[in-house]
């Protein structure tokens, strides 16, 4: 256990993440509407030691009731359109929707027309677009930090 912690400490020194710049936070809720799971892997990586978005006040929260931002991945399948709307309706205002990855942006989506209800844009108002298939953790981190900056009226 101590070895493990030392190993992590060494890693943190090596990565030398830039220091946190300011205060403020955004609570994020993720909804997968039929993604291939690559976006989920990359979003999860942003919480890992190499990116560690939590230290900027960017937290994934358990319920849309706690969330400022709805992070949506996937092309919006017919079966997920309902739960997606329910999650959005559950969010307190002010709230905004971020499209994470090319599928959520309606680009290059594969599948049968009959099984898809998307693109997301036609279902919910999209305020932030993070392109990529999947977007890298760095791209996700940059986009969310920019959003945080806008949200709190300061610039990075």
């Amino acid at each position, binding site marked *: 256990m101590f070895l*493990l912690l030392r190993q992590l400490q060494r890693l943190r020194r090596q990565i030398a993440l830039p220091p946190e710049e300011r205060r403020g936070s955004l609570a994020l809720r993720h909804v997968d509407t*039929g*993604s291939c799971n*690559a976006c989920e892997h*990359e979003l999860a990586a942003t919480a890992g*030691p190499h990116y560690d978005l939590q230290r900027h006040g960017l937290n994934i929260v358990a319920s849309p009731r706690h969330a400022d931002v709805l992070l949506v991945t996937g092309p919006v399948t017919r079966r997920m359109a309902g*739960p997606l709307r329910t999650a959005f309706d559950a969010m307190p205002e002010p709230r905004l929707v971020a499209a994470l990855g090319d599928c959520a942006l309606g680009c290059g989506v594969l599948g049968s027309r009959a099984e898809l209800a998307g693109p997301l844009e036609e279902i919910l108002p999209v305020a932030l677009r993070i392109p990529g298939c999947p977007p890298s953790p760095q791209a996700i981190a940059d986009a969310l930090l920019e959003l945080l900056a806008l949200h709190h009226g300061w610039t990075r």
Partner: protein
Amino acid sequence: MSGHATTSLHHGPPGAARRIDVEPARWRDAAREALDAGLRFSGLFGIEGAGGVMAAALFGRSGEERLLVCDPGPATIVPSLLGIVPAADWDEREAHDLYGISFSGHEPLRPLVHHSDDLDSWTVEVGGEDTHQVAVGPIHAGIIEPGHFRFHVVGERILHLDLRLFYSHRGLERAAEGREPADALRHAQRACGACAVANSVAFAHAWESAGGLWPDAELARARTTLLELERLYNHLGDISAVCAGVGFAPGTAAFAALKERALRLNRSLAGHRFLFDSVAVGASRLQVDESRARRAREELRELADESARAWRELRFAGSLQERLAGVGVVSREQALRHGAVGPAARACGVARDARTLSPRLAYGDFSPARPPSPTGDVAARVDMRAVELEQTLGLLDGLLGRAIEPARCEPLDSAAHGGDVGVGRIESPRGESVCVVSAHDGRVARMHLRSASYANWPLVAQAARGELLPEFPLINKSFELCYACCDR
């Protein structure tokens, strides 16, 4: 499947399927004969042809693939195989939902892919004093794919679990129909980000088998390298996820960091962190020069050292190990009965691994890794990942011993190949992924992908039985199945 000619190929190249047309009355017998011949059930699905809908069941092993095809007639009813092949449960429900085929003897034939508002139509009735249901999902608390779980519990004790997946059903198989092979391969690949290589190689093998193509040694090595790189980051991630499942943060972070390094290595070798678009039909998309191969091996050796060190720490972390042992047990009998695959099957002593017999790949005299103790619980499934991780790192060290050059497929003697149906069997990080492809005029007539997750999901529900509700995330993570390549 699209043609009407029945081939009678017995000893063709691995992957070419022998199609046998069967009357509904002979359907069960034909399945039993296939099992008696030592073939394993590998999927059942509907096909839409000019003559209407037909049912197809694949039985096989490397070296022999038998595709039973049954025309159910205007009533679209065929006898259920459930009594002979319990693993066909989901397949029959799916064929009913998507192709309208009924299976006599499969009662009740609950919807699987179709989502009904009528709870009774898809859940099992559980009664008794104080029993109640806990509904979870399709949106979960973490960063997780969508699925709905309905736990029947007394207090915290799980009596039964009904799964409703297929929220990520995109109709990829239908969408691939009529497409050129390169385009259809993208559908197999994007079925799942975390099994992208396995599913695309399965498709490529199936297509190449149908067309009588054989990969040269360099192509076999390129694909094997990609498959093991995919396993590497998945297994590292799986160990991290299990630590997260019990709230053991140092383990979660250490293995998440190792996974990140593996993903960066993927990017430097293949240009994509998840190795997307690194597999093509009949050709290689992975070329690695001498110096990059050497650097990759150095990085892999560091990863091997660090993961071994971190794993040792986990082994001696009492608060972690205490949570893993004896939880979510799957017996060897259950695993065999329900056709479990991958690390989950090997963890209960079923030494099944599609890499063992894979002449189209560069595995040589591979033999499956053995678990330290085949107890079939969460601990055994996690241990299995660690053992396989070491094996994968060893394989990669050998595979990257020299540059990977441009490569391609060679045509086989045309008399030797079986016609229009091919099968690919690939050991993905989660177990065997089977792709069946039928070709017609150079295009895909039907593609069916039965991923390891599809085979193993019913086992997750069984492993949860009798356990406490808070153990479920842990049990689930010890399988770490994909929703996306199950749902397609």
